[in-house]
């Protein structure tokens, strides 16, 4: 182990270099003096004594150099020396440095930003204890969805896992959002109903107070909740007296018992739950469908909305757990399918269970979208390649400028390897500076990406983007790969020169090869940019086509308001009364041109509509049912194609009537006008009505327009009887902006009953939500392809200005021989034009090929859409034109006399 000590000593020798040098000189000096004195004593004449001492030592400098080799770490020292030299060189040409650093910063920044998002989505493990032990419990084809009864049986009978948990998003009237209110006002947050063992199974403990425990998740327990860190900070300023406070959630009081850690977001990637309540609390507080009454709340419903996660016992494999689940699944099936209280248990009973590892958590369907991940990955790769291409180009240009310096150093005896190392050190230094700047861009870029991926109205997507070793390793790897791969060729090229030719100021040798390489890199950059621009154009045109599609209504100026009234649980009659009062209050507001009220069926299942045909045949269609008030279609501006809208004469006591959507009318009645005809409605609970059709309206697009219309039929809200739950929603067409209208609506609602919680959204959100995915992709692709175009512009600019600078002398000669400025200009631009055109040609081909990859996303536009291609080509020509024009113009203005004196 002696050598370890020796290395440490040598490492220490790197410091205090000056003192050590002085000491070495002093030692040499004393050695010589001692020797000379000895010689003098031996009787030599002074001059000879001196010479003999010097000769015997073998040269002071040689000795010192050998000594230095032993001292310190020569490899490291030369590296540091190279680094210092590199820093000096980079400072000396700030233009080159700035352009390369900018280019690298953009490239590395974009790549890291994209990678960190993909990493967070797919590769990062959950911030919980031993995430590799967690498995999702799936059943049959349904996936990880279970009924509450099933969960209870599962929890009590399983002995496969060391712990199990269940969670449930709240599918209430507010679309999974809780409205929480404290003294300062109300706001929407995402929340979860969780089982008592939720936190303990995940191994997450509270940062303040305690987590939920199984005693909280009991029927009749005090309603308590755990809040998220963000909510804690926002409502209580991270103060400890948040504990024990009551918070109103959808109008019901919960006592805060703890705060979850800041990094905790459950097991679903991208989700932002800020409040956690026991599953059983739902039994106490949720607004239940009136028809069930308090004895049958939704927890006892066969609806399968819960997700179950188990923690494997140490040493138990997934296969072994699956074997146990087979047995357990059969047991639970027989227990549930024999229940006679509801016919739907038969369907809801689980098929077979299986476990699926989920160390990285689950992500919702839209984030699992392969198209988007693919798009992001391709973009990351392209950004990096183009940025590296720029670096390579700039280094090539620089190597050409430094030929005489390099030739001199070679002539002075530097080895080629030594010079290559020096040049590589420079590109590494550049990359490191670029990467450092890129990390700032990455931080900002990944936030921008999240913004683009989030739903505009809803919660922003939250992903864990902080640094961890794997992410850092990725950033370092791409930085070094960039520097070494793209720095090596220029370095080898630069040092492969004949000293003779340089000394003779020859214009040939290495430079032509460099120019070919430059041209290749530029063409590749242009091709990639064009391919991306074409794809972005296609995505943008898809979005345009989707938005241009007539959605069957006009959302401009319409506000939807969802009302929650806590009194409704107790009295359905009162609920209708409050609902009618609200509608009247909204209608009477000044500036409101029309207002309507709509309620949904308490069960979001399809109704079966049956129309008797000739000769005993039947036509059937499943259809969604909406209860709407008169003026509904007036407010939405949905054209009534035949018959009439509902009116006040359609009441609870008049015969049942319905309005059909055009598509449904076609399915049920064919070409015959259905007005005045009847159909039978079967709601799946054994209720069967004969309903008369009074009108047909245009199809309203609730989904992405390309998905086609949903079969919908409308009934008057006055005829919904006990089938509706909740007060429902309102649509108000009013003059004035959204915020202003929303405020006035809230004020009006408060005059009806101050306990009413109103949630307003612009109706246009329905449109933007339906094309959200398309907009996200179009936005990301467009922003990114412009960004890549900018990088390519830097590349073209760099190469043209380099070519112009390198050929200054040639230009001078040509001009002296009679070429005019136009000739020079054409000569310089001509070469670049050829390169760019080759790039564009390849780019268009690649773009069309890439369109095949995203074909599933494209709609209403052909992969060879001339608009998209034309735009991409035009933009690229413009970018390249500007980038090449500036340096070419500078070269054109060169004075022949100056140019000939050049060098």
């Amino acid at each position, binding site marked *: 182990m002696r050598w370890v*000590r*020796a290395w440490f000593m040598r490492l220490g020798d790197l410091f205090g270099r000056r003192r050590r040098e002085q000491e070495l000189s002093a030692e040499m000096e*004393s050695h010589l*003096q*001692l020797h000379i004195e000895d010689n003098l004593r031996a009787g030599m004449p002074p001059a000879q004594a001196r010479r003999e001492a010097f000769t015997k030592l073998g*040269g002071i400098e040689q000795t010192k150099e050998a*000594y230095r080799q*032993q001292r310190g770490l020569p490899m490291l020292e030369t590296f540091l020396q190279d680094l210092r030299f590199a820093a000096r060189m980079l400072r000396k040409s700030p233009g080159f440095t700035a352009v390369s650093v900018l280019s690298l910063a953009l490239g590395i920044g974009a790549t890291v930003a994209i990678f960190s998002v993909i990493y967070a989505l797919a590769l990062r493990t959950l911030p919980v204890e031993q995430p590799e032990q967690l498995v999702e419990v799936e059943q049959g084809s349904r996936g990880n969805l279970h009924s509450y009864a099933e969960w209870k049986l599962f929890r009590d009978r399983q002995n496969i896992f060391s712990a199990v948990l269940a969670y449930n998003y709240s599918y209430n009237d507010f679309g999974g959002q809780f409205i929480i209110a404290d003294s300062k006002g109300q706001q929407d947050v995402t929340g979860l109903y969780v089982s008592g063992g939720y936190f303990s199974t995940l191994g997450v403990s509270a940062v303040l107070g305690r987590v939920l425990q199984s005693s909280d998740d009991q029927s009749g327990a005090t309603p308590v909740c755990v809040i998220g860190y963000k909510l804690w900070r926002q409502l209580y300023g991270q103060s400890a007296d948040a504990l024990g406070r009551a918070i109103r959630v959808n109008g019901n009081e919960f006592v805060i018992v703890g705060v979850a850690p800041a990094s905790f977001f459950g097991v679903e990637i991208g989700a932002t739950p800020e409040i956690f309540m026991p599953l059983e609390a739902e039994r106490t507080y949720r607004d239940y469908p009136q028809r069930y009454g308090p004895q049958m709340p939704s927890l006892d419903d066969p609806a399968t909305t819960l997700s179950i996660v188990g923690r494997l016992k140490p040493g138990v494999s997934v296969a072994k757990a699956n074997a146990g689940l087979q047995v357990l699944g059969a047991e639970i099936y027989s227990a549930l399918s024999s229940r006679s209280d509801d016919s739907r248990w038969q369907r809801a009973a689980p098929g077979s269970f299986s476990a699926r590892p989920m160390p990285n958590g689950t992500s919702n369907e839209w984030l699992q979208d392969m198209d988007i991940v693919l798009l992001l990955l391709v973009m990351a790769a392209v950004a990096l390649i183009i940025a590296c291409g720029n670096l390579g180009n700039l280094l090539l240009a620089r190597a050409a400028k430094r030929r005489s310096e390099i030739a001199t150093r070679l002539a002075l005896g530097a080895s080629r390897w030594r010079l290559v190392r020096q040049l590589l050190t420079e590109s590494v230094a550049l990359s490191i500076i670029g990467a450092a700047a890129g990390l700032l861009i990455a931080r900002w870029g990944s936030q921008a990406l999240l913004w683009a991926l989030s739903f505009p109205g809803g919660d922003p997507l939250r992903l864990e983007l902080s640094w961890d070793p794997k992410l850092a390793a990725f950033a370092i790897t791409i930085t070094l790969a960039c520097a070494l791969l793209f720095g090596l060729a220029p370095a080898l090229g630069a040092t492969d020169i004949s000293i003779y030719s340089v000394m003779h100021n020859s214009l040939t040798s290495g430079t032509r090869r460099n120019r070919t390489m430059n041209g290749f890199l530029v063409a590749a950059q242009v091709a990639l940019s064009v391919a991306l621009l074409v794809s972005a154009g296609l995505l943008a045109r898809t979005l345009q086509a989707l938005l241009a599609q007539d959605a069957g209504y006009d959302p401009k100026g319409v506000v939807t308001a969802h009302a929650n009234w806590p009194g409704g649980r107790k009295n359905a009659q009162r609920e209708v009364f409050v609902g009618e009062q609200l509608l009247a209050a909204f209608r009477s507001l000044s500036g409101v041109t029309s207002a309507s009220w709509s309620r949904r069926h308490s069960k979001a299942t399809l109704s079966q509509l049956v129309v008797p045909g000739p000769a005993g045949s039947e036509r059937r269609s499943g259809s969604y049912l909406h209860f709407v008030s008169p003026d509904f279609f007036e407010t939405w501006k949905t054209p009534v194609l035949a018959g009439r809208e509902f009116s006040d004469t359609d009441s609870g006591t008049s015969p049942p009537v319905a309005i059909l959507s055009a598509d449904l009318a076609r399915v049920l009645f064919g070409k015959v006008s259905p007005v005045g005809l009847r159909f039978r409605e079967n709601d799946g609970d054994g209720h069967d009505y004969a309903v008369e059709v009074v009108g047909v309206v245009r199809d309203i697009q609730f989904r992405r327009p390309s998905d086609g219309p949903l079969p919908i039929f409308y009934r008057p809200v006055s005829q919904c009887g006990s089938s509706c739950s909740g007060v429902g929603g309102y649509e108000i067409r009013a003059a004035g902006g959204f915020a202003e209208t929303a405020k006035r609506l809230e004020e009006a609602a408060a005059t009806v009953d101050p306990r009413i919680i109103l949630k307003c959204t612009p109706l246009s959100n329905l449109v933007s939500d339906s094309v959200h995915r398309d907009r996200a992709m179009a936005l990301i692709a467009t922003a990114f392809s412009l960004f890549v175009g900018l990088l390519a512009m830097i590349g073209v600019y760099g190469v043209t200005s380099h070519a112009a600078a390198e050929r200054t002398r040639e230009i001078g000669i040509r001009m002296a021989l009679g070429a005019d400025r136009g000739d020079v200009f054409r000569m310089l631009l001509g070469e670049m034009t050829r390169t760019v055109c080759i790039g564009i040609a390849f780019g268009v081909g690649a773009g069309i090929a890439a369109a095949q990859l995203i074909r599933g996303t494209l709609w209403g536009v052909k992969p060879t859409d001339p608009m998209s291609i034309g735009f991409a080509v035009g933009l690229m020509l413009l970018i390249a034109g500007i980038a090449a024009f500036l340096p070419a113009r500078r070269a054109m203005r060169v004075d022949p006399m100056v140019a000939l004196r050049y060098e």
Partner: protein
Amino acid sequence: MGDKTSEKKDVWQGTLALMVLKTLQAMGALHGYGIARRIEQTSGDLLAVNYGTLYPALLKLEQEGYISSEWGVSDNNRKAKYYKLTRAGRKQLNKEEREWEQTTAILARFLTPGEEQS
């Protein structure tokens, strides 16, 4: 950086190190010039190459902790850097001496086979 010379130097430095340690054991603290002279005297013309080669070897020994150095004043009032053996150096010297004796003993048997056979 010349590969061939370094190999040769290593061999030379191996024995040189032993000589330095032995010299210091025999003479006590001594400066570089003194060590060089002493080795030259004892070994004839072996160190006739250069006194300079001694210094990297001294540095290496010091880095390994076998010797330590200190500035002092020579008999004739010259400032000089004095080297002396450390405890680890003494141990190392014993070890190397033993190894050297073994090696030479083995070599001796090879080089003078006659005595062994008879």
